[in-house]
């Protein structure tokens, strides 16, 4: 018995040498015979035969290796010819049904395209980090954690400069360190001024990132010389749009605020520093700014230093290094996290969103693939007879399976190419809609994207090619030929299973959408104590008095002038059409808060509430109407409450209740600013107003009339539109500019825009899960429809018999609808289970809603069930119309 089976021997090409030997042996024997016939002795003939052949070990070896090369190449060519032939055949088959094939290619391209887009976003946001930064995974952000007063328990990314300075000189685990911050600054003059995102960076920042400028240079530590001229680096976009991509821009001036900067370089397109949001220009840190508490600090770790080690060293250095930072900062702990984390040391919304998109796109591809497998199975059922004939004609089951796999591969490959197109179109749209102020440039087709397309396509090809092929391989194909039947029950169990998968995944996505929709409802239900959506805030800048702000008396002089001009403006805009209320305020919820000294007769100290405060604001007449804040008791300010009149205050509900629990807040008085100041009488109590966001604890709040405030400034004009209408921003701008020609800049924003940060995860959740969920629902409905239509078609005979035996049209329709509902029910159970298991992915971003909210789970189940009852409507009607006689004759 041979050691190896012939097939394996052939595979390993072990036979090749022996075949050559056989061939040569025959040659030598025939030559020997011929020579002996010519009269040579056997011995001489053998010698001569060998000589003529030039036989030696070397020639034999050479012959064998030539034969080996020949066999390898022929083997390969043979395979290749098979593949070519089968591919041609598969392509012809696909072309024969152009509509179905077109539909399959379209959905598959979209499915793969969605994954390519998600991949490129995940790659940018979670893997590669900000554009043009080298080895972003080596970078960490430093955070500060405070406990107790004065800031409460919180983790922030704002690091006081003196602490950064201490770290920079001592942390050994860092190969480089840099500090930066980004602020919105009005650039331009008058009504044309627009906010730009201006970054400030120290000399270490750019070298630490490792980016290269496209023009000129970046800042270096050597630039940070006391008294040197202010320097700026432009973004590529500003260079292009504002300077016409002028190559001679270096050395030209760039004005930020009142300061003229000298342009030293242009950053590459898509450069956004150490974060992902757009930055329009960078300025060099000033000596003044080095006193600030607010700097983001980025560290590049040395090779071999991991994040915990760095964090530990940063904290240790901070502990032993005395700095000029304030006491709270000196006592606070330092920690470190990846740069993809947000300002409170949690994964940023961008990275969370990238994760959602990744998961959603995988689900979409699964649903799409399930749909295509379903379609392929339906086609297979129709082709069963044809395939059976092929098998009978000796095509071999293996070849039929190979053909089906090739069809899947062909579809997936064409769709893979199409998906690049889809990604190219959708990526910029998704960036604009979902990622606000995205700084990175659009993804171009690069090696990584191509690799991703390749992998995704391969996986898809396996799913849509191999599953039907496996089904076909399992089906008794020959039986189809013998019986001449319309098709056996191919895929009759698999297709409903696929429909269940689709229903389950739809449930998963819809639960996500539902949870975010409920969060939105919860947000809308929050009583902010004002109508933030209705209030437009205008920050108007007037020319500064000479010597502002350091000349003696300049601050007071500026405040007086600003107040007078604001009052004139107020009168002017009040008359604008569409403006229902207008008022002035120093200190606004979400935007600016102030605290001053406060003394209350009968109280040793002012209670400290978890929400902070007490917060003071100076406001004009009509302020509470403009804000939509309700008056509870007493009165609000009138035009008679101003500088020089009787000192009065209006307090918030919580303040009234906490300071005067007996309920006699009115007629009490409080002393403000300094202990010797005259007592200010409480004339009114108003509703509490949220000061910092959607979710917050109660705080003490009170108001004084404009003119009676001391020690804080920064006046805003607030406008409220009539109910149900909105103000035209350009009209407001021009009204202000008309009223006062000296206005230098106008910044408009809706008060509610301060809530955008909190609203964004919810809006994004609704957008991403809502759209994908709706899409999945449609696909699942189509799947249910097609499975039921198919079922009715092949059960025509059975239904006919049932009807002959007395089943009513109603009961037959109920049978069809019941089957569909049963499939959906299984899908719902699985989908809800998946949603329950996956809730942690979104739970942190919901608002006042649990990740397993029974209302949402129930509603989604009801929707899917409803679809399952409607989708088979046509097939059910079809079934009910089956006439027994026709059905039986049809066989």
């Amino acid at each position, binding site marked *: 018995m041979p050691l190896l089976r012939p097939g394996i021997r052939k595979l390993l090409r072990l036979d090749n040498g022996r*075949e*050559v030997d*056989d*061939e*040569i042996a*025959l*040659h030598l*024997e*025939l*030559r020997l015979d*011929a020579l002996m016939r010519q009269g040579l002795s056997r011995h001489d003939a053998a010698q001569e035969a060998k000589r*003529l*052949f*030039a*036989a030696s070990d070397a*020639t034999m070896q*050479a*012959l064998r290796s*030539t*034969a080996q*090369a*020949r066999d390898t*190449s*022929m083997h390969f*060519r043979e395979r290749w010819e098979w593949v070519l032939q089968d591919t041609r055949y598969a392509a012809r088959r696909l072309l024969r049904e152009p509509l179905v094939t077109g539909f399959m290619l379209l959905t598959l391209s979209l499915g793969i395209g969605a994954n390519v887009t998600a991949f490129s976003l995940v790659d940018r946001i979670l893997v590669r980090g900000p554009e043009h930064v080298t080895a972003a995974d080596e970078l960490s952000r430093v955070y500060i954690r405070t406990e107790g007063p004065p800031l409460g328990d919180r983790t922030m990314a704002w690091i006081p400069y003196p602490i950064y300075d201490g770290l920079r000189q001592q942390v050994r685990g860092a190969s480089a360190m840099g500090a930066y911050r980004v602020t919105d600054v009005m650039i331009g003059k008058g009504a044309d001024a627009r906010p730009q995102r201006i970054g400030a960076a120290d000399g270490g920042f750019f070298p630490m990132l490792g980016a290269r400028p496209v023009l000129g240079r970046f800042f270096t530590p050597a630039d940070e010389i006391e008294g040197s001229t202010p320097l700026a680096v432009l973004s590529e976009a500003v260079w292009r749009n504002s300077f016409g991509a002028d190559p001679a821009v270096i050395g030209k001036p760039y004005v930020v605020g009142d300061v003229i900067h000298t342009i030293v370089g242009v950053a590459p397109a898509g450069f956004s520093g150490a974060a992902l949001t757009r930055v329009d220009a960078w300025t060099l840190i000033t000596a003044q700014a080095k006193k600030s508490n607010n700097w983001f600090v980025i560290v590049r770790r040395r090779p071999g230093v991991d994040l915990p080690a760095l964090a530990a060293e940063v904290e240790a250095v901070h502990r032993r290094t005395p700095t000029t930072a304030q006491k709270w900062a000196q006592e606070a702990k330092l920690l470190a996290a990846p740069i993809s984390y947000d300002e409170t040391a949690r994964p940023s919304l961008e990275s969370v969103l990238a994760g959602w998109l990744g998961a959603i796109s995988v689900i979409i591809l699964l649903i799409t693939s399930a749909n295509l497998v379903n379609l392929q199975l339906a086609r297979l059922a129709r082709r069963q007879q044809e395939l059976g004939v092929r098998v009978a004609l000796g095509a071999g089951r293996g070849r039929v399976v190979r053909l089906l796999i090739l069809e899947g591969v062909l579809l997936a490959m064409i769709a893979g190419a199409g998906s690049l197109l889809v990604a190219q179109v959708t990526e910029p749209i998704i960036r604009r809609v979902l990622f606000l102020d995205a700084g990175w440039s659009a993804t171009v087709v690069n090696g990584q994207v191509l690799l991703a397309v390749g992998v995704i396509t391969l996986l898809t090809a396996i799913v849509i090619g191999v599953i039907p092929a496996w089904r076909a391989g399992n089906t008794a194909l020959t039986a189809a030929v013998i019986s001449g039947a319309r098709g056996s029950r191919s895929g009759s169990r698999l297709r409903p299973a696929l429909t269940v998968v689709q229903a389950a995944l739809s449930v998963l996505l819809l639960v996500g959408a539902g949870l975010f929709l409920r969060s939105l409802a919860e947000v809308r239900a929050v009583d902010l104590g004002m109508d933030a959506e209705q209030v437009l805030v205008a920050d108007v800048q007037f020319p500064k008095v000479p010597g502002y702000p350091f000349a003696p008396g300049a601050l007071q002089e500026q405040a007086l002038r600003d107040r007078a001009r604001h009052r004139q403006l107020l009168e002017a805009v009040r008359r604008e059409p569409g403006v229902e209320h207008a008022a002035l305020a120093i200190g606004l919820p979400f935007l600016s808060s102030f605290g001053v000294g406060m003394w209350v007769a009968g109280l040793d100290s002012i209670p400290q509430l978890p929400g902070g405060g007490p917060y003071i604001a100076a406001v004009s007449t009509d302020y509470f109407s403009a804000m939509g804040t309700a008056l509870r008791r007493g009165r609000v300010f009138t035009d008679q409450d101003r500088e020089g009149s009787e000192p009065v205050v209006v307090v918030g509900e919580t303040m009234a209740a906490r300071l005067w629990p007996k309920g006699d807040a009115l007629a009490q008085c409080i002393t403000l600013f300094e202990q010797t100041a005259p007592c200010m009488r409480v004339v009114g109590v108003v509703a509490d107003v949220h000061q910092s966001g959607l979710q917050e604890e109660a705080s003490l709040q009170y108001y004084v009339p404009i003119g009676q405030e001391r020690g804080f400034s920064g006046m805003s004009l607030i406008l409220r539109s009539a109910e149900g209408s909105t103000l035209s921003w350009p009209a407001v701008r021009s009204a202000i500019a008309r009223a006062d020609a000296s206005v230098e800049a106008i910044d408009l924003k809706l008060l509610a825009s301060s809530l955008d940060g909190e609203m964004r995860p919810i809006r994004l959740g609704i957008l991403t899960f809502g759209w994908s969920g709706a899409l999945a629902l449609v696909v699942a409905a189509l799947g249910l429809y097609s499975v039921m239509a198919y079922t009715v078609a092949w059960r025509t005979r059975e239904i006919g018999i049932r009807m002959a035996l007395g089943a009513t049209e109603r009961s037959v329709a109920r049978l069809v609808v019941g089957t569909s509902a049963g499939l959906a029910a299984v899908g719902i159970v699985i989908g809800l289970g998946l949603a329950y298991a996956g809730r942690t992915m979104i739970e942190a971003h919901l608002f006042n809603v649990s990740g397993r909210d029974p209302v949402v789970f129930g509603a989604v189940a009801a929707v899917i069930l409803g679809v399952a009852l409607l989708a088979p409507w046509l097939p059910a009607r079809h079934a009910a119309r089956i006439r027994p006689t026709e059905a039986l004759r049809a066989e």
Partner: protein
Amino acid sequence: MALPVVKGTLDVLVLKALTWQPMHGFEVTAWLEARSGRRLALEDAALYQSLYRMEKKGLVKAEWGVTEHNRRARYYQLTPAGREQLRQQVSDWLQYADTVTAILTDPSPAR
């Protein structure tokens, strides 16, 4: 005296032999010897090298068969590509031979 086979001409000779009928290796050898009147010095090993190379290029194809004396032998036959190759090489060879002959038989004296 046997003439050495000019490099590259062995292939075309083998192809020519196979135009008659499918043959195994020794038959090709015998055919060439008969046709050349044994004037070509041909190593049998080289013939097999030529056959294997041409099989790899798809100019000939081979399958195992049985000789008239019931011996297992590998029979070679021309493929369409081989036939085309032969036509081309014969035409090239004849032109080459004509050109060389014309030069060598030019009566004007060499300088």
